[in-house]
Each structure stands twice: as C-alpha cells, then as structure tokens.
C-alpha cells in the first residue's frame, strides 16, 4: 500500500517536471537561436548567409576585414568606448557625492532636495528630447563629444540607489573620523567610497551598458561620422548596404557581432552582479 502510493505520487510528479523541462528547453532555443544565428552569420559568405545552413561551411573573416577596412567601424567602437567610460566614471563620482550629502549630511532643505531629485526619475529622456536638443544646441555642444557626454551624466537613478545604500552604513564610523578632525571630503573619499565598492561595481556595469547601447541621443546630436557611436554607425551601415534591396547581410551580422560582443562579455563576467542590481532596483522602488 505504502509503496503503491509512493509510485503513484512519483508517476504524478514526474510527467509535470518533464513537461516543464521540455518547455524550458524550447524557450531556451527561442531565446538563444537568434544570437547563435547572428554570431555564425558573421563568418558566412554573402551567399551562404541567405541560405538556411546553420554552421558556415567555409568560415571566413572577410566580413570583419570589410567592417574594419571599408567602414570606420573601429573608430565607432572607440568613440562608444570613450563616451561610455567617461560618462560612467564621472557620473558615479557626481552621483556618489550627491548621495553622500543626501544620506549622511544634515542640512536645511534636505528632504526637499531629495524629493526634487527623485521626481526627475519620472521624466523619461525621449519626452524631453526636443527641448534638450535646443538647450544643447544653445550651449554649442552639438556634433562634439561634450554633446554626447554631458547630458548623459545626469540621471537620478544612480543617486537614488547610492543613497539607499549609504543610509545603511553605521553612523559611528564617520562620527569617529569627524572627531579625529576629518573634513567631510575626507570622510567621503576615504571612508564612504571604499565601503561602497560593491554597489559602485553594479552601477558601473549598468551605466556602461546603457551608454554603449544608447541610440536616439547620439543619432540626433552627432552629424559628423567621425564622432558616430557604434550603434549609430551600425545603423548607418545598414542603410548603406541595403540600398536597392540587395542587402549584404553578412557585413551587417559581422558588425552586429562586434557591437554586441563587449556587452555580452561584460554580461558573462558580471552576470550575478547585474541580476542583483536589477532585482534591487525592481524591489526597492
């Protein structure tokens, strides 16, 4: 009797698990197939790219050679890297400074400043695109690196997450430092910043990815192709090679692979960190 129930529950459980597993595999194929199709496509010849063959029969680097020699793609990548790196470093400095003040210092109007900063989170960039463009034009930042970098620095999201983190640091630490004669800058630089390494690492990934992947702002602020970021350059390449309907997809796939590679590598190295930061941003808001 007892064994019979055991067998029955096992039989009852197993098919459900198997079904779930099968569904999981099918969804995984659905999620991964386009990415594999992209990466293998970059190594295919032009004619092979338009057939259904999954693996390139005669893998070639010609598409990558074309991308680097006939198109300033390396330049686009370096532009993106430069802009993303500068924005990430400077934004994290500014945001951690502001967050330190909002979390650790006592001053009149602190709550008001916090609410005002927080309310800018509700404004999404595309809605203020046109006035922002007009302001950036008045500041003579169109078509240069300043135009790509400066407006991208200011985002209350980072301030908010850093502030939440700083609030949890025990007060005794900085009280001791202040009694020892440290100024607020030294407390911030030598105490708070080193303590916030984990969250700064998460935000570094977040900011770098967001800026590397940015499209609409670089598209409208830059006219000179020497300053194109990689996303805009890739889109331009699409317009060039699809003229007349005969798209050379293998070039585009090679370019797309190169564009996606840095973020994919970052993703694999820092996956846990990224997922954690998404979870916290999702739950603590």
């Amino acid at each position, binding site marked *: 009797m007892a064994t019979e129930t055991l067998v029955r529950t096992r039989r009852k459980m197993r098919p459900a698990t198997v079904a779930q597993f099968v569904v999981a595999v099918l969804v995984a194929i659905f999620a991964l197939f386009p990415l594999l199709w992209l990466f293998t496509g970059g190594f295919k010849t032009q004619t092979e790219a338009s057939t259904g063959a999954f693996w390139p029969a005669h893998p070639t680097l010609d598409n990558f050679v074309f991308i680097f020699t006939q198109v300033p793609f390396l330049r686009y990548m370096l532009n993106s890297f430069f802009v993303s790196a500068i924005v990430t470093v400077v934004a994290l400095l500014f945001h951690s400074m502001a967050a330190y003040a909002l979390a650790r210092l006592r001053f009149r109007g602190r709550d008001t400043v916090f609410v005002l900063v927080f309310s800018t989170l509700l404004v999404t960039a595309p809605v*203020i695109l046109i006035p922002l463009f007009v302001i950036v034009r008045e500041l003579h930042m169109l078509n240069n690196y300043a135009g790509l970098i400066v407006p991208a620095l200011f985002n209350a999201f980072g301030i908010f997450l850093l502030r939440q983190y700083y609030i949890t640091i025990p007060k005794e630490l900085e009280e001791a430092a202040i009694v020892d004669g440290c100024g607020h800058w030294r407390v911030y630089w030598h105490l708070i910043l080193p303590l916030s390494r984990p969250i700064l690492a998460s935000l570094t990934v977040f900011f770098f990815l967001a800026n590397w992947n940015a499209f609409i702002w670089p598209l409208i602020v830059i006219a000179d192709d020497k300053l194109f970021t990689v996303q805009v350059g890739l889109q331009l390449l699409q317009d060039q090679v699809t003229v007349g309907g005969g798209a050379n997809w293998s070039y585009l796939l090679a370019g797309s692979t190169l564009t996606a590679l840095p973020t994919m590598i970052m993703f694999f190295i820092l996956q846990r960190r990224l997922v954690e930061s998404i979870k916290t941003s999702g739950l603590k808001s």
Partner: protein
Amino acid sequence: MTTSVAPHVSRTKTVATQGKPGLSRKQREGWAAALFLAPDVIGLTVFVGIPMILSFVLSLFQVSGFGQYDFVGFGNYQRIFADPVFMSSLRTTLIYVFVLVPGGFVVSLLLALLVKQKLPGVGFFRTAYFLPFSISIVVVALIWRFMLDEQVGVVNQFLGWFGIPPQAWLGNPNLALGTAIAVTIWVQMGYYMVILLGGLQDIPLEYYEAARIDGASAWSNFRHITWPLLKPTSFFVLLTSTVAALTGAFDMIYVLTKGGPANSTNVLIFYIYQQAFQYGEYGYAAAIGTFLVVIMLICSTAIFLTTRGGRFSYGD
C-alpha cells in the same frame, strides 16, 4: 524644516572644536552638502528640469527654419487633432501598449514561475532567457530583420516546413506591428523575469506549506498566495514596461521598420522624432510630447489604482 535634525546636537556649539573658526558644525555641514550636491543638482536642473518646462513652452510656438519662433498659443494642440497621421499614430501607440504590456507581463511571469521550479539546469535556463536583454536594441532589431526577411529569412524557411507560405513580416501593414511587439517581448522577457523571480522568491515558503496541508491545488496556490503577494513587484513591472512601451520604442521602430509600412508601426515617440528632426517642427513635436506625458500619467494612474499602488498586507 528637516525633521531629522536632532536639536541637541545641532545647537551645541562646543561640538565645533575643529575647522574654521566662526562656522558652527551645522553651518560647515550645510556648506559641504551644497558643494557635494552642486554638480548633480546643476546638471539635473539644466538637462532635465529646464527641458521639462521648456517642453511645454516650446509647444506654444511654431518653429520655422532655424531659430524663427512664432507664438501660436494652443495652435499646435488644435493641429494635433486635425492631423490624420497623428490620429493613426495615437491608435498604433495604444494598440502597441495594450498588447505589449500585458503580453510581455504574462510571458515574463510564466518564465519566472518556470525557472522558480527545481528543474535540472535551471541556472542555464535563467541565463539563456536573460541573454537577449544584454544586447542593444539596434543589434536585436537587425538580427530579427534578417531572420524575418521575406526571401532569405530563416523564419519563413522554418514555417515552410509546416506548409506555411512566406510572409512579409515587416513589409505587410497588417503584420508589422504585431511582429514588432513579438520582437520586443523577446528582448524584454528575461529582464522582467528576473524582477518577477525576485518577487516570487520573497514570498515566505510557509504559506505554500500551509496550503499543501489544506490540499490546495496549484491554481488556488497561485490565486490566493502568489498573485496577491506578488502585487508590489507586478506593479513595478507593469509601470516600468508601460513607460518603456510609450517612450522607449524608438530604437526598435527606427531600425526595424522606420515607422512603416504605410505608417502601420509609427508610434508617437517615432512621430515626435519625425516631426522634430526630419521636418524641423520643434514646436509641433513638443506639443505631441506633452500629449504623450498626459497619456503616460493616465496609464500610470490606472496601473496604480488597479494594483492599489502595489500595497499588500501579509495578514490577508
């Protein structure tokens, strides 16, 4: 007045034993705060605050050529309702949001429930589902344009095995919007899955154990435990995905279809771009932008009311 200032600390002048003479500790803290906040507060004011106000001001002007501003009052807003392209764009946007947001939410929630199970290789599945989100929308749109191509695309080849004739997924006005929505769900499903999974893992296991003793079915588990306790997370996901659908669709639409064919995928955020940067109509584009903000507020309020602001109590 900040309530957090402890009066007995701030009023004791003797605390200010170090530092510049003449400044109390409280004053020094105030100055330090001003300096620490200056870069971000100035930046946010110039690049977020002022544009927000300017957006409305700009919508009252007709901008012709370079720098010629003519005050037209609410003329741009009147023009909106007489513009057939705007009306079709509004309709497209509403369809886009009302299909994408619930559709994406259901897909992500099902995935989160799936990878919450103790399946073999569950870590791999989580990573696999999340991976599309790590690449840019421009690249995503390019891959799918390639796979959905009418002649060379692998999607049509695959459907051919089942005897389904090739479709112009992005060239057919009746299919293009649905295709764009499906591709968007493909990118976002892993991201919202991660957030919803976080919410699911926060639900105390004791609730399910208690329900099992009562002999509750999987469905009643979901209805009476998972769903109510997941409300705060659902609220967050629905809100962010609505905002993303209304304003973040630009990259996808630009690369995938450029608003076509026959304006069938021309969502408002793309129409704003067209008006401003292709036709130089900054004032009119700003008016559409203001309109978009109003839609966003209405949607946010609706989500807030239906999920009761994501509030819940464990006592229920």
